[in-house]
């Protein structure tokens, strides 16, 4: 996504209570975040609710955002993913989701560049995933894009949960090795 600097500036404005900045940020990022949320939730009206929650969260948490520590896109995408996964987990189970995952957003490491070139990084991550067993890479992508639990993924793949966990963990550890 281009304009990471603009996004940082919008977040600064939001932190200062500037409503117009929120509108600009929404215009620049809502389609991407809605895409992320829809991949996880599929159900459109639920995804719309979550998208709304995400921008309300962004408005309230913008003062905590620190451009020296986090890419703004990563920060917002993490909020969107966590909110959507939170909603997914709440389905079907008792409404005992006691922790608000969205407040657990962890800022990326200080080394993460605020002006991260996501397209370039995406190519590197894709290339790193492509070095893995294709089935393992596909499962990692499913886990990330669809927000499924290990249990759900194992059931879908028809493999024991322990096997699936080790594929994912080893796969990502190798992916990191390739990125280094």
């Amino acid at each position, binding site marked *: 996504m281009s304009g990471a600097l603009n996004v940082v500036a919008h977040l*600064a404005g939001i932190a*200062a209570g500037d409503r117009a900045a929120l509108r600009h940020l929404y215009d620049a990022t809502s389609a991407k975040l809605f895409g992320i949320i829809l991949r996880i939730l599929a159900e459109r009206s639920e995804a*719309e609710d979550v998208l709304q929650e995400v921008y309300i969260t962004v408005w*309230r948490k913008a003062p905590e955002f620190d*451009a020296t520590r986090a890419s703004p896109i990563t920060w917002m995408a993490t909020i969107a993913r966590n909110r959507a996964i939170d909603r997914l987990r709440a389905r079907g189970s008792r409404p005992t989701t006691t922790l608000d995952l969205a407040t657990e957003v962890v800022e990326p490491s200080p080394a993460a560049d605020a002006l991260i070139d996501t397209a370039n990084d995406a190519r590197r991550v894709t290339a790193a995933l492509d070095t893995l067993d294709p089935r393992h890479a596909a499962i990692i992508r499913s886990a990330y894009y669809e927000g499924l639990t290990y249990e759900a993924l194992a059931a879908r793949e028809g493999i024991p949960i322990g096997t699936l966990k080790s594929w994912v963990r080893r796969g990502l550890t190798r992916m990191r090795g390739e990125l280094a």
Partner: protein
Amino acid sequence: MSNDTLADMVPDDDAVAIDFALGALDGPSLRAAELRLRRDPEFAADVARWQADLSPLIDAVAPVAPPPAIWASVERELFRGLVAAPVSSTIARGVGAAVNLWRGLAFGASAVAAVALALLVARPATPVAEAPPALLAASMASTDAAKSVLITATYDPARGAVILTPSAKDASHGLTPELWVIVGKDKPLSLGVIELHDPQAHRIPQALRSKLTGGATLAISLEPAGGSPTGQPTGPVVAAGTLTVI
């Protein structure tokens, strides 16, 4: 053991960080990881690194334009009832200064100061009152002769939740533990039923959050299944402690 196997070993700590960053956990393992995230900065940093490593994957997600009604809902939720106040010009000046300062410092180490300033001037009238960020904690000692710490409670106003960490054997004896807050000489107010065997985050109802202040007492009584039938403690009080700002 071949080199390949060695390279494939994933340290246990990293495994949980991967699981959490990926969002693949559920139920008790998710709650355990969330608690650890709050207490263990090294673990939090691991999770952050994994989230950063994975985040370029969002590049491949196709954008989908949301319906226009969503923006209207966001605006309504955040700004309803807000009208341009007579003091707006003063606020605007303050906001402008804060923005410039934020921009000036955003790439320096002292952005925190600017953010704090921005917070001071930023929120004249958000519909939900912003709670003070200070955490409050109470070591809840057992009320028997031993006075051992039974459970530690940490209240996070920003989340409206009390993190309960049992540190002794489950003392509920098959009854239902219920958490209470006592402010001064007021009657105890129920904060809901809890568990004494697992760490947990216990959400505090919005209306009761203002009661959780420094000096207030938290107490746990043992009640029949479902909690106290009367709205006041009916069973033995097994632990109590005073909330202090940490």
